[in-house]
């Protein structure tokens, strides 16, 4: 019964989408019908997701999807989140979020009704393609006969709170990028690009960027806690495919500001919006089609690959075709001073686009290569380290330089000399404490510090802190424009993130070892002693919990308890790391290979200095985006 209702609901949603596309083409003039159809799309796609989740909650194993990915003994939270832990369910989540933001756009957008309907018509086209994909080749409501008594369970790696948060946040970012995409396409079709359009779209661009940032950050912290390798970024193709739209969205946030302020770079901004959405589609489907081999990828079905490829090609040809035919119409040509914030945005876009190309090449090339030659290749981490990082360092320095540049500034040289020398002193101080690293690490620290100090100095100058007048300073703080604050917050977050990543990945060290009860393992000034092993039965797994007593330079840190979990249903195991995190460094233990015969375990100890800076930086960075989205007044949806 459930699968039938679920399927019916999907088909009704498709009918609503099809009518939203077709009926305005037949009948003349502006019609409110599209709006109603969009509401229908939302209700019925939400209905089918609700039914799938309900199927998971009551463990209805006649649904093949539930049988393959769930089990009665699974905790409730993973039954709910388990609905999108597989290919079919995740696409259903994607399409639901798309329907949801269409409703938000319908209700809150300040565009005229005719434009809104036309844009939603385009959105319905995107929606219809995906819902068709769900119904015809990736149906989550397929039946299994006879109904199994018990399910196969969910990959234990996915049984983590990250599953409940990371995919929805990332997908929200992906689908938000469809609104500027459709809106700018509409402006191309209409051959007019009013300045207000860029203002309207800025909220959506910010939403795209903020949710992508949050999604990537959550994914990274999940990998750090769960994968047991102590790493936070692996240059895995799937991670890269979420980084691609993020880089483009970052460029778009900046270039759209130029459109708003100066009316320049209009065509480029439209193209970026198109690319961002295409990269979002690629990000979703590269992961979900099984083309990529990674921890994220699901079983491959050639029919799906073909459908997705066709869908992607159609969207790409339509959008880029319209752009090619119509883009000549817009844009004013104005003078741009080379030493101005506007010029800075120009460079920002160059940098980010280059980074995008770098990642794109490394991610797409192996797929193309395999299709052409049949041999499987992968691009090693070394490629990204040697290309992405040096280019990023330039970006950071340019960012620090251009976002603090002022027109009315006579002590220009002194200011940047001061920032440069301050950053140099910082790097020297660090190199005293943390010697023996490659030149690129010190350069990265310099770049991060350059950005940070440039931003902070600029802020201090703005609030006139040097006058040592508390009331004046407070007045100045209140008087700062909110868009300036947002820029300040995000750039400071970026600087902190860059410094954190450099510290944590340069001066990390690790050791692997075998521990028996009472024996100790040393890493730098840490010692870990195995006090005992304990067997625990929890929910749907059995865990061996190691009790490790940790000391640092003879001072007690406490007991850290990493686990190895055995999932009986899935016949699989995971390791849960234990992390002692203070501001200065993370001490990380993961265990594996508990051997019952001699009561020993293998452990890996990790030290990652300033790991917390990465999370702090990421939080500040995304907060800047959300702050701008929610509190900067001039915007409307």
């Amino acid at each position: 019964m459930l699968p039938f209702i679920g399927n019916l609901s999907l088909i009704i949603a498709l009918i609503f989408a099809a009518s939203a596309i077709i009926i305005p083409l037949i009948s003349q003039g502006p019609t409110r019908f599209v709006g109603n159809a969009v509401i229908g799309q939302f209700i019925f796609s939400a209905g089918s997701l609700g039914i799938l989740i309900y199927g998971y909650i009551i463990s209805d194993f006649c649904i093949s999807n539930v049988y393959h990915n769930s089990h009665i003994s699974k905790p409730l939270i993973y039954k709910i989140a388990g609905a999108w832990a597989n290919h079919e369910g995740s696409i259903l989540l994607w399409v639901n979020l798309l329907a949801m933001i269409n409703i938000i756009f319908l209700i809150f957008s300040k565009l005229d009704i005719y434009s809104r309907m036309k844009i939603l018509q385009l959105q319905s086209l995107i929606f219809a393609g995906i819902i068709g994909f769900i119904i015809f080749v990736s149906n989550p409501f397929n039946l299994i006969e006879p109904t199994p008594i018990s399910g196969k369970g969910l990959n234990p790696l996915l049984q983590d709170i990250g599953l409940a948060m990371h995919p929805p946040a990332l997908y929200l970012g992906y689908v938000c990028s469809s609104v500027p995409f459709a809106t700018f396409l509409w402006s191309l079709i209409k051959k007019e690009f009013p300045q207000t359009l860029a203002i309207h779209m800025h909220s959506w661009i910010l939403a795209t960027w903020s949710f992508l940032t949050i999604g990537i950050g959550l994914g990274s912290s999940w990998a750090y806690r769960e994968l047991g390798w102590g790493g936070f970024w692996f240059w895995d193709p799937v991670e890269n495919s979420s980084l691609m739209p993020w880089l483009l969205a970052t460029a778009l946030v900046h270039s759209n500001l130029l459109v708003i302020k100066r009316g320049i770079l209009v065509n480029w901004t439209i193209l970026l919006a198109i690319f961002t959405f295409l990269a979002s589609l690629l990000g979703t489907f590269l992961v979900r089609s099984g083309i990529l081999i990674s921890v994220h990828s699901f079983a491959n079905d050639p029919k799906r690959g073909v459908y997705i490829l066709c869908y992607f090609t159609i969207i790409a040809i339509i959008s880029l075709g319209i752009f090619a035919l119509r883009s000549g119409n817009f844009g004013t040509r104005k003078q741009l001073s080379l030493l101005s914030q506007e010029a800075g945005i120009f460079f920002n876009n160059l940098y980010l686009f280059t980074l995008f190309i770098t990642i794109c090449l490394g991610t797409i090339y192996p797929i193309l290569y395999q299709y052409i030659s049949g041999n499987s290749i992968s691009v090693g981490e070394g490629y990204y380290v040697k290309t992405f990082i040096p280019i990023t360092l330039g970006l950071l320095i340019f960012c620090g330089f251009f976002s603090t540049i002022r027109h009315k500034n006579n002590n220009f040289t002194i200011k940047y000399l001061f920032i440069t020398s301050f950053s140099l002193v910082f790097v020297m101080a660090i190199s005293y404490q943390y010697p023996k690293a490659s030149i690129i690490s010190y350069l990265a620290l310099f770049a991060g510090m350059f950005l940070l100090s440039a931003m902070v100095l600029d802020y201090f100058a703005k609030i006139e802190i040097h006058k040592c007048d508390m009331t004046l300073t407070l007045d100045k703080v209140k008087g700062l424009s909110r868009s300036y604050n947002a820029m300040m917050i995000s750039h400071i977050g970026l600087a902190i993130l860059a410094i954190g990543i450099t510290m944590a990945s340069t001066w990390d060290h690790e050791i692997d070892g075998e521990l028996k009860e009472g024996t100790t393992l040393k890493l730098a000034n840490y010692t870990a002693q195995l006090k005992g092993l304990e067997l625990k039965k929890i929910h749907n797994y059995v865990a061996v919990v190691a009790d490790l007593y940790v000391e640092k330079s003879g001072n007690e840190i406490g007991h850290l308890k990493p686990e190895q979990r055995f999932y009986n249903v899935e016949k699989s195991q995971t390791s849960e790391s234990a992390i002692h995190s203070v501001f200065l460094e993370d001490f990380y233990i993961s265990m594996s290979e508990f051997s019952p015969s001699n009561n020993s375990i293998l452990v890996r100890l990790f030290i990652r200095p300033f790991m917390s800076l990465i999370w702090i930086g990421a939080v500040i960075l995304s907060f800047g985006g959300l702050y701008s989205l929610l509190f900067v007044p001039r915007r409307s949806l």
Partner: protein
Amino acid sequence: MPLNKKLRLNFIILFLCFFSPAIWLILDNFSDNIVFFYSPTDIKMQKISQAKIIRIGGLVKEGSIKRSNLDLEFIVTDLSNDVKVKYNGIAPTLFREGQGAVVKGKLSANEFIASEILAKHDENYMPKEVADSIKKQGQWRP
């Protein structure tokens, strides 16, 4: 107002100064970092340089895992041919006998010295490349 020609030229020059090192970086590093994948049969049939880092994959042969402290030794098979693999360190949790595995490292005389064991699987715990190479040998029994 037409864009000042001199300014435009400045931008183009800056653009080139900026882009050419980036492109040089990308091209210079790209080919060096491509890692090829081989099945145990490929290793037997082809001459593969011992200097290059490669990935090999297959099933971990039942009963082949030998461990002493941190030294790990096992056999990777595509059910037609075998390769002996040596590794020092902790294997990922999903690494088990009878399961698919992909290892990265270098070939030496007649064994493979692994620097990394990749435990990236789909929901059926089978790396796609391993499945493909076993299918190629006609030994696929899902």
